[in-house]
């Protein structure tokens, strides 16, 4: 009986295949050789240590992003995947201007934004918005929903009259499935999924073009994840949005993404359109990642076993960051950092692929 229901469900759901990457338009966001380091050393006084009888200055950094180059094309949903410590959240925050890059640049619609003064950046703020991971911390506990949603709108469009603001907020609340009558309530009166809807409403209220979503559904229950993901897909269609979607859940990526970028220890390993990546992952890390997803039809765990542990981003391995765990590593991998090379499906940074050692 359930098979019949399944078939029914699939046939009646609106099926619009994900954007074919060949149809992608112009570049909206450019990330060039992005680098970000965080200092672990504290202030000047804490950096001084006594070693071997001499006063030395020790500086330790967490190398969160190490040279990432990426383009986000208008209208697509570019997913960035990776495990914890790979730097994907840092990339999201740097693109949005919450962090200043240590190197490289970020461009939006052709203009460089990472070094802009806050006042000049203001019009761009309206066009770029962000959705965060933790629904329980994304909304100010002391503000009503109405206030939370109205504030950005009034800030960016001060000429709007009160009535117009109210109407706009009501419309955006309805579009995310929240009853506008609940505007006077506070965040803690809503469930996790509803709070995430409200966060999405806040992002949509200013009519942005580009939304960075940092693991927006990871903290939600499975059935609620489906609701929120559907909402995001609808919003994309209705408002012609471009997404940069950060996640660790490859199943979501397969469903939602146009192209996928796989990151490991702050480096871009592979970039390809979704279908190709899942059909034929090239980079050894991508292959291991894919095999690790627990599938429903599996009888037992069956994955590519990686050696060793994830190294710390404080002392990066030499050469390719993945060489310590890679089953195909050779001497060149230990010394030389691989650059992104073009393949028929996208880009890969791997010596073994370049040399044709793995297919």
């Amino acid at each position, binding site marked *: *009986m*359930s*098979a019949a*229901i*399944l078939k029914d*469900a*699939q046939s009646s*759901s*609106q*099926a*619009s*295949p*994900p954007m074919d990457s060949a149809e992608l338009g112009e570049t909206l966001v450019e990330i060039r050789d992005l680098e970000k380091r965080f200092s672990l050393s504290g202030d000047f006084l804490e950096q001084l240590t006594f070693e071997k009888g001499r006063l030395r200055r020790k500086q330790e950094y967490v190398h969160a992003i190490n040279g990432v180059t990426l383009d986000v094309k208008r209208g697509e949903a570019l997913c960035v995947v990776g*495990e*914890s410590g790979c730097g994907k959240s840092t990339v999201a925050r740097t693109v949005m201007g919450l962090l200043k890059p240590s190197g490289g640049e970020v461009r939006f619609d052709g203009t460089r934004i990472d070094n802009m003064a806050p006042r000049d950046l203001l019009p761009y703020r309206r066009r770029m918005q962000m959705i965060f991971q933790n629904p329980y911390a994304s909304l100010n506990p002391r503000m009503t929903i109405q206030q939370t949603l109205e504030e950005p709108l009034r800030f960016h469009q001060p000429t709007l009259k009160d009535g117009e603001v109210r109407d706009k907020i009501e419309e955006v609340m309805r579009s995310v499935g929240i009853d506008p009558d609940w505007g006077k309530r506070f965040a803690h009166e809503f*469930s996790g*999924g509803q709070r995430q809807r409200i966060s999405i409403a806040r992002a949509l209220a200013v009519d942005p073009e580009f939304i960075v979503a940092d693991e927006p559904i990871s903290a939600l*229950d*499975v*059935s*609620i*994840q*489906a*609701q929120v*993901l*559907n909402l995001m*897909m*609808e919003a994309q269609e209705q408002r012609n949005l471009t997404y940069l979607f950060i996640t*660790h*859940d*490859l*199943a*979501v990526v*397969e*469903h*939602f993404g146009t192209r996928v970028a796989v990151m490991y220890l702050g480096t871009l390993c592979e970039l390809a359109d*979704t*279908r190709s990546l899942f059909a034929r992952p090239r980079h050894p890390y991508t292959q*291991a*990642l894919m*095999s*690790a*997803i*627990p*599938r*429903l*039809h*599996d*009888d*037992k*765990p069956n*994955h590519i*076993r*990686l050696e060793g*542990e*994830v190294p710390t981003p404080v002392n990066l391995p030499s050469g390719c960051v993945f060489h310590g765990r890679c089953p195909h590593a050779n001497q060149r991998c230990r010394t030389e950092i691989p650059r992104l090379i073009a393949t028929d499906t996208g880009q890969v940074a791997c010596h073994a692929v370049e040399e044709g050692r793995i297919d």
Partner: protein
Amino acid sequence: MALLEVNNLDVRFAMRGGEVRALRDVSFTLERGERLGIVGESGAGKSVAAFTILNLIAKPGYIAGGEIKFDGEVLNTLKPKAMQSIRGNRISMIFQDPMMTLNPVLTIGEQMIECLKAHRRISRKDARAIALHKLNQVFIPSPEKRLDQYPHELSGGMRQRIIIAIALLLDPDIIVADEPTTALDVTIQAEIMELLLLLCEKHNVGLILITHDLGVVSQVTQRTLVMYAGRVIEQGPTREIINDAQHPYTQGLINALPQMATPGSRLNQIRGSMPTLTKIPAGCAFNPRCDFAANICLEKVPAFAHSGNCKVACHMVDAMVAGERWTPIITDANGNGATPTDNHRTEVNT
């Protein structure tokens, strides 16, 4: 006789807003060496079930009814001292966050030796030897070094392995694992689940795996319980449930996975959300969200119907199995609301 028997367990929490019925009439068994999965979303009561087995529910929670029997002995009325000799010794537990489970100011070795000495009369030297042996069993590299390290010096995956080693220290009969891999990356998750499976098979240790991830359950467990709003709504062999779920909630849960939808199309979602446990709807708790709800679903709590090797708590399945007609209340054009008025949904269940 099953190793662990839970019969009609009823657990409640006396809260300011009302009484939360965390578990309602929950029953299941676990044979020696069997691997059972408990699946559900947050609020379903799966963690509460695990904690209750080990009598870790504290005020304002209390067991309002039912019993738990382990190896013939009734657990829920056991005196605290007797219960202590069961916890960690014969039934051990693994929690979700490895960083919070390990004491940050004690070395790994101290924590393991402390655990051993709490239950056995052995010297520190012997305890250390056993600890070393267990660390080897979970494939920790250079275990002697690890014994003198602190938790923060180790990665998440290693910590979880150590916790599994601690759980196995006293050769328990059952391990209860409460979302052991939710906080871990997917590659580490795969390793940990494989390790757990291997160890349970090798030492014939029973496993109760609590998770929301159906894929993990599919890989590791032999039988599964699906919980919703404090009740078991479906139970049976894992393969059967995954391949051919009968209860509309389980079906909805499986269908909502991105794996099950066509890429680019909308995901199949279940409307609404789980009710708050202080205001459980009358009849079947799932009825406000169920497309197949009929009048009986609003009034009567469903008993278990047998369908294949599974037990399903659903009136519709019951009717189907008996070969009777089933008429759900028609949904309107928007698919909104299977009932004519809203009042029914928020009545407190008796």
